[in-house]
């Protein structure tokens, strides 16, 4: 198609669009449904999906607007899976800025006081964040086991994809006899994962402080880990744009302790013993409670997912993140 023909086609399409809009064809210029009669009497809103060519860009936008929207890439990078389209699809662990209550159940019988104590520590995050946790007698969205091995949790909205007969969080052997300091350190840390926060010790700045050879030796000696496991667990930094919007914070509750003997500078990476002020501020920023500003979370991202199904690529908005600033 030559330029004249293309311009002619474009003009015809615009005329047709205006005509449809004037005749009240059921959609306005933004793809919103309208009732017959022409005017926008009422709207029904249905989510639309961006064209495939924009998925990567949309993911970047989501990440720019809210850093936690970026996926934790380390395991995929290690496996050589770095297809940008795949990464874009994976960008979905953030719960969103609206207040939300997640239901919690326990996989095994647990005494009332223990269940209440675990819930109390999970809800420590709600001091500043709009996500809270409430026990249900049914099958919770968060399902806690104390009989599996170790401490772990699935990340953010991933918990919704875990089969209902499996736990989403494990707190091995937690009991009323477990010291309060461990509730602060472990339960709040694992709940941070449920909120979508990855490990802070995988931040580039902190990983850079680790002497690789010493780390290999240390974890071989203490855990029997091979180099691949050490790489995956300790030495592969997350994409710096994927995490907290704060400088790397070695006292974050999401940061593990690492001993001085494996650092370049001879100082330990302290690790978080409880939710610190920066954690609280960050949680409050991305999960704002009523009355707090939702700056940078509304606007661009919502606009991006409300656009209609497809359009000419030349009309693509390339700096969507700027719209939210």
């Amino acid at each position, binding site marked *: 198609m030559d330029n004249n023909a293309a311009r002619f086609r474009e003009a015809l399409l615009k005329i047709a669009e205006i005509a449809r809009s004037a005749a009240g064809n059921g959609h306005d210029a933004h793809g919103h449904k309208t009732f017959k009669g022409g005017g926008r009497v009422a709207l029904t809103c249905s989510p639309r999906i961006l064209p495939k060519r924009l998925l990567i860009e949309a993911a970047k936008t989501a990440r720019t607007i809210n850093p936690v929207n970026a996926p934790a890439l380390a395991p995929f990078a290690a496996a050589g899976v770095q297809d940008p389209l795949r990464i874009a699809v994976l960008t979905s662990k953030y719960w969103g800025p609206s207040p939300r209550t997640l239901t919690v159940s326990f996989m095994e019988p647990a005494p009332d006081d223990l269940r209440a104590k675990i819930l109390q520590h999970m809800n420590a995050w709600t001091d500043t964040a709009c996500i809270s946790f409430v026990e249900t007698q049914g099958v919770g969205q968060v399902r806690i086991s104390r*009989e599996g*091995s170790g401490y772990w949790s*699935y990340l953010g909205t991933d918990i919704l994809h875990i089969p209902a007969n499996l736990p989403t969080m494990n707190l091995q052997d937690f009991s009323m006899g477990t010291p309060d300091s461990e509730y602060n350190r*472990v339960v709040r840390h694992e709940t941070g*994962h449920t909120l979508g926060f990855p490990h802070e010790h995988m931040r580039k700045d902190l990983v850079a402080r680790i002497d690789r050879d010493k780390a290999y030796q240390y974890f071989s000696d203490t*855990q029997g*880990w091979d180099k691949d496991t050490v790489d995956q*667990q300790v030495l592969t930094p997350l994409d710096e744009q994927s995490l907290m919007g704060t400088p790397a914070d070695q006292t974050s509750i999401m940061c593990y302790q690492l001993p001085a003997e494996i650092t370049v500078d001879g100082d330990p990476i302290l690790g978080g013993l409880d939710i610190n002020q920066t954690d609280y501020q960050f949680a409050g920023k991305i999960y704002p409670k009523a009355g707090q500003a939702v700056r940078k979370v509304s606007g661009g991202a919502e606009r991006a997912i409300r656009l209609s199904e497809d359009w000419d690529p030349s009309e693509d908005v390339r700096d969507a993140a700027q719209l939210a600033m």
Partner: protein
Amino acid sequence: MARLIDIGPAVRPLPQILRVRPGDLIKFAATGGDVKSGETVIRRLGVFRTSALGPDGGVLSPEGAPDAVFFLVCNPGSAVLRIVSGDPWGKFETNLIEARSEA
């Protein structure tokens, strides 16, 4: 028939002696471990992270340390296994287990 021997986190203390046969597969609920002696008798297959099948056949992995170590019994003889459990970033414990493999 070869056996899958699943030694879960509730098995504490761990046995000091484990009697197995060539072909057996041993799974320990542990954050780490290796073969201290007798590598021709027992081979460590690796340390693993329990994961779940997600939508569309994808696999979802939780954030956390490894939680399983697998060993394969290859030959008759004796081996010493080191099993590490607990929290690699905090308190953990190490156990040595003698595995006796008899055909």
